[in-house]
Each structure stands twice: as structure tokens, then as C-alpha cells.
């Protein structure tokens, strides 16, 4: 069963067509990869799903309900959260607060309740902190609770973005190049984390990634974009041997075979 469905999705920036007539379905609880050379339109695709951009035409359906026209925060409420290719943390806030912001949608406390010291608001805050700490333990950042997010090392920042995204308890998690800039050891840990999240958090994961080794190892299904068009889709084995994909990546063929 497809949890997320995309129909004839097109995005144009002036004369430039960033994605053109893309249709695809993502299986519930799968790990699905979206790959393609630089400028293929992968990030644009994510930006349309999360309502950062409005599609020029086409439709996006989550469990059959259209997301087009929603505001970004509404998409998050519907159950889709994401990380960013160019890390976007709240640099001046602590690591813990970053995760707490991720929970925003789930916290019910009203500011009036905050001012009047309502016990339910207070309890909710305390529980939220405990949960945020558990999430940080889960992604391995518990020693940086009070650190400013901007001071973390690169790999840690990427993991914090994941922590913030899962804090919302999403149904679908979009990861935009989560392994970029990580060393092999960190990448290995990340691979384990992604695997574990799928089962433990019962979440559907869509990831954009250039690290082919990671993609081939982790994905159930792969979609390949090139110049804004969907040129191939299939299980890793099929993609590895697909002629059009190899062509698109020409010069990167070595990586593919690695």
C-alpha cells in the first residue's frame, strides 16, 4: 500500500523546469531512495512535498489526501517531517531545545496556561523534556544536551536534524543527503539508525543520497531523477544494472559499481 503518492508533479522556476511530470508511489514502512546527479531536482521534489514550494502542476497525496496548497507547518502536522541538505538547525538554541521545537505540534499547552502556571502545562513541559532527552539518547547526542546546536560537529548536526524531525512522530520522514560530509564510521552508524527508525518508530523513510553504497544497501526501492525527469525506478539490483541510470551517472560509474 502506498502511503505517499505523487501524480504528474511539475515545478518550473521561470523557464527552468526543475521537475517534470513525476509520478511515483512510496510503500508504507519502506525505505525509499531518490537519487540522481546534481541538479536533478531531488531537493525540489522534497520541497514540494513539504510545501516549501507549491508545485506548478500535479498532486501529492498522503494516505489519499491531497497536500497541495497546505502551509509547511500543516504538512508537518499531517505527519511529514524532514531534514535539510544544507543543515538548518536553530543554531542559537540548545540541542535539547531544538528537539523540543520539533515537538511543537504535539504540545497542547497554551501560553495563557503557561502564564497562569496551569499544572497540566507544567507537567507537559516536564514530560516533553524527558522525551526529548530519550530521543537524544537514541540518536547518540545525549552528552550535548546543553550545547548550542551551532557548536556541534557536522555529523552531530546531521543527527540532531534527524532527532528534531522524529520528535514530531512523523508518518513519513524525508532525509535530504543525511550522510553528506560524514566519515565512513559515522555513515555506518547512520545506516544502522535509519534501519532501526523504520521498525522502532514505525515510519516510512524517503532519502536523497549520493553515497551509492549506502543507498544500495539500505533501500527497498529506488527512484532515479535526471534533469527533472524520472528515468528509472526499481529495487537496488535493477537500478544498479539500468542502462539509463548508468548513462546519467556517466563518469560516476565507478561509484555505482562500488
Amino acid at each position, binding site marked *: 500500500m502506498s502511503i505517499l503518492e505523487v501524480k504528474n508533479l511539475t515545478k518550473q522556476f521561470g523557464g527552468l523546469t526543475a521537475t517534470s511530470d513525476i509520478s511515483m508511489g512510496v510503500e508504507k514502512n519502506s525505505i525509499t531512495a531518490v537519487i540522481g546527479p546534481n541538479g536533478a531536482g531531488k531537493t525540489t521534489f522534497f520541497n514540494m512535498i513539504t510545501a516549501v514550494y507549491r508545485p506548478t502542476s500535479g498532486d501529492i497525496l498522503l494516505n489519499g489526501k491531497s497536500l497541495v496548497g497546505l502551509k509547511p507547518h500543516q504538512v508537518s502536522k499531517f505527519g511529514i517531517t524532514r531534514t535539510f541538505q544544507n543543515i538548518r538547525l536553530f543554531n542559537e538554541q540548545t540541542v535539547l531545545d531544538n528537539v523540543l521545537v520539533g515537538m511543537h505540534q504535539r504540545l497542547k499547552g497554551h501560553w495563557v496556561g503557561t502564564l497562569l502556571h496551569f499544572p497540566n502545562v507544567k507537567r507537559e513541559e516536564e514530560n516533553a523534556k524527558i522525551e526529548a532527552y*530519550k530521543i537524544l539518547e537514541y540518536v547518540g547526542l545525549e552528552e550535548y544536551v546543553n550545547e548550542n546546536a551551532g557548536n556541534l560537529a557536522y555529523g552531530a548536526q546531521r543527527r540532531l536534524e534527524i532527532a528534531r524531525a522524529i520528535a514530531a512522530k512523523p508518518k513519513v520522514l524525508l532525509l535530504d543527503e543525511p550522510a553528506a560530509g560524514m566519515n565512513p564510521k559515522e555513515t555506518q552508524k547512520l545506516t544502522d539508525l535509519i534501519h532501526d527508525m523504520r521498525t522502532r518508530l514505525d515510519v516510512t523513510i524517503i532519502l536523497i543520497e549520493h553515497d551509492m553504497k549506502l543507498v544500495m544497501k539500505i533501500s527497498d526501492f529506488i527512484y532515479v531523477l535526471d534533469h527533472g525527469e524520472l528515468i528509472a525506478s526499481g529495487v537496488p539490483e535493477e537500478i544498479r544494472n539500468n542502462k539509463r541510470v548508468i548513462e546519467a551517472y556517466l563518469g560516476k560509474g565507478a561509484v555505482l559499481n562500488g
Partner: protein
Amino acid sequence: MREQISKFSQSPKAQAIFFAAYVIVTALGLYLMQTSVIAFLLLLFSILILYYLKLKTRTKWLIGLFIIAVVVPLVASQGPSFQSYMEVGTLVGIYAAMSLGLNVVVGFAGLLDLGFIAFFAVGAYTYAIFASTQASHFMPFGHYPLPGDTFWLFILIGAIIASIFGILLGIPVLRVRGDYLAIVTLGFGEIIRIVLNNMDHPINITNGALGISSITPPNFLGIPIGNSSQFYFIVLGIFLVVIYIVTRLEHSKLGRAWKAVRDNEIAAQASGIPLVKTKLAAFAIGASFSGMMGAVFAAKQMYVDATSFTYLESTMILVMVILGGMGSVPGVILGAAVVTILNTQVLTDLSNWLTQLSTNGVISIPDALSPAKMQRLIFGILLVVFALYRTQGLIPHKNRKINVEKLKKEASEAPGGALLSKERAETGGTD
């Protein structure tokens, strides 16, 4: 020597004794030498010392309140300068509350607002119109001026009307960012001032450039409130409420949302924060503090006109926020105190002193450098120095640190040891 210093910085008892001695000496100094501005300033300085002492937060609050609410009014009350000290104290309170309001907008939510004084004006005019005969020009019912005991209600009304104006400003402004936002808010501030200055026709609402005079003074249980030493306590009360609101909100869901929007709008939205609502809340809450103080200001001056609400006033409040430390509550309060005291006491006294010296022929100052003109110059130089050497402000903002050990313990004891239990179905993630 070094050992003694470190011992001192570790021992709350030694600090408490030192602090008590300091307060007693400065308080006595002020009591005996009434005209000594220095004694007055040194006494106020004790609050800053208190801030850095190693005491429990609650203890500090109690001591601080005692000094501000009891010691200062008491020891300053003996001489002719009494009212002027209380006046300075009152102004510090008014500006500090406004700076805290602007700090919500600029410091927390990251929205540069150059027209903040407009909300102060709105609050001031709201009370002025209804507490003078002005309202009878256009109100179809009721008797004006309203009696002085409605003042207390008008503190609230001023807050509400100002926050409505905050939202009105916010709606068009939300589309623009950064520099453009600053320009639009600057324009808004000027528009409000010019409108207030011209609303005497076709219907006379604000009495135009003549301003509104004979504003009824507040009335507390039948006692009319007319001088600074009484307003001092009203301002102090409102100021404390403002501090309470600001500190509570800062560490709440809303406060985190403000800072998230400030740090990264796109990520904030992707995390589920509604941009419009969050920004408007900042504008509204920030403006409401100014509105409250506006009502107090009108009642205190008993006269308002648009000249009190110029662009210069808006920048002055912004300077207080930036000088004190953007986003830092204690910093902003200190910034407001420093700027206000510089403007109303130190620089004025300095220029008076220089003028006196030159009229006595002790020194000769060329006309171009007359001390009155120097005031602004000195103020400007001070700002430049601070901007260069203390970019984070007098008391830079620090994030609150959580007790990790405690949190860790709680997390391990919390029910459902497994992370993020799969309770999504119950919490209704679909809507």
C-alpha cells in the same frame, strides 16, 4: 590575595556580608547627602552587584525588591531632590518595560522594529482621550473626563488596544523580512505619529498638534496620585508583571517557537510552527507592554502630544535592547537603566556642571561645543565604543541550562522505557 578573591567568590556568606555593607553605606550616603547623584547611582548599582552574587534566585529577588521598593524611596525621600530621583526611577521602569516588549519582537522573534514607540503613543492617547474632555467631542454617550479610578482599567485597555495595533502592523509586515521589515515598521511608527498629530478634523479625536491637556490623574482608593514618588510604585508594579510574563514565556512553547523562527524560518515551519501566528503573537505581546506604560505616561504627564513619540524615541528603545544584550532579559533591563540614567541624570548633570564652570570663567568652551550639544555627542561616542567592544551587549544572552543528571534519571525512570512509544494512533497524528 588571589586565594582570598577566589575564596570570596565561593562563599555566599562573605558575599552577603559585603553586599549588606555596600547597601548600607550607599543608602546612608544618599540619606545624608541628598543632592549627591553619585550616591544615588551607587545605590542603584547594588542591584547589578546582587545579580552577580552567588545566592539563590529567590533570595536575590526578595533582596532586590526590598532595595527597590523600600530602601531607595526611603533614603531618597529626605531632601529636595527626592522627586527628581523618583522621577528617574519611574522613567527607568517605563523604559525597561518597553525595552522588554521590544526585546520580545527583536530579541526573541528576530523581527527588527523601528517604530516601536507607536504602541506607547497608542496607549498614552487611549488614556488621554478618555480621561480628559477630549472624548466628548466624538463620543455619543458618557460623561468625560472619566474619573481617575478608571485609570487602573486603562492600564489593561491600553495593553489591549496597543496589541491590536501590534497585530495590525504585523499583518502587512509579515510579507517582508530583514531590512524591508525595518523600513516598513519605521514608516508605521511615523504614520501613527502623524495621524495622531492631525486627527483634529473632520472629527476632533486627538486635538491635533495642540495635544491633550488636563488629563485626570489616577485615583487610588480616593487618594489622587500626582507625583513621581507615587507613580514610581505603579510603574514598579507593572514592570514586575512584565518581567514575570517575559521570563515565563521565554522558556515555554511560544518562546521556543519565537527563537526558532528567528534562527531559521524554513526549519521552524517544517517543525510545525505556524509562522503568521507566532510572529503576530510577538508583535501583540511586545506592543501590549508599551501600551500599558503609555497609559501611565499620559497620566503622569497629564498632557500628551505627538512630539513625545518621534522616531528618535523608537531608536532609543532599540539602543537599550542592543546595548543591554539582545534576547537577554537582565541585559535589556540594565540597558534601559543605563541609557535612561545617562540621558536624564549623568549627561545633564555633566553639561550643567560644565556650563557652570564656563560661566564662572574657570574654563572657556567655544560655542560650537556647548555642553548641551555635547550631551548627544558623548552619548553617541559611548554607543560606538560599546558597539565595537561589547558586541553582545552588557549582559549577553545565555541559554538556560538544564540539569542533565536529573533529566537523565527521570528519563530512565519514566514509564515506557522504549523511546517514542507507538502511541501515535491515540495522539491523533492524522489531523
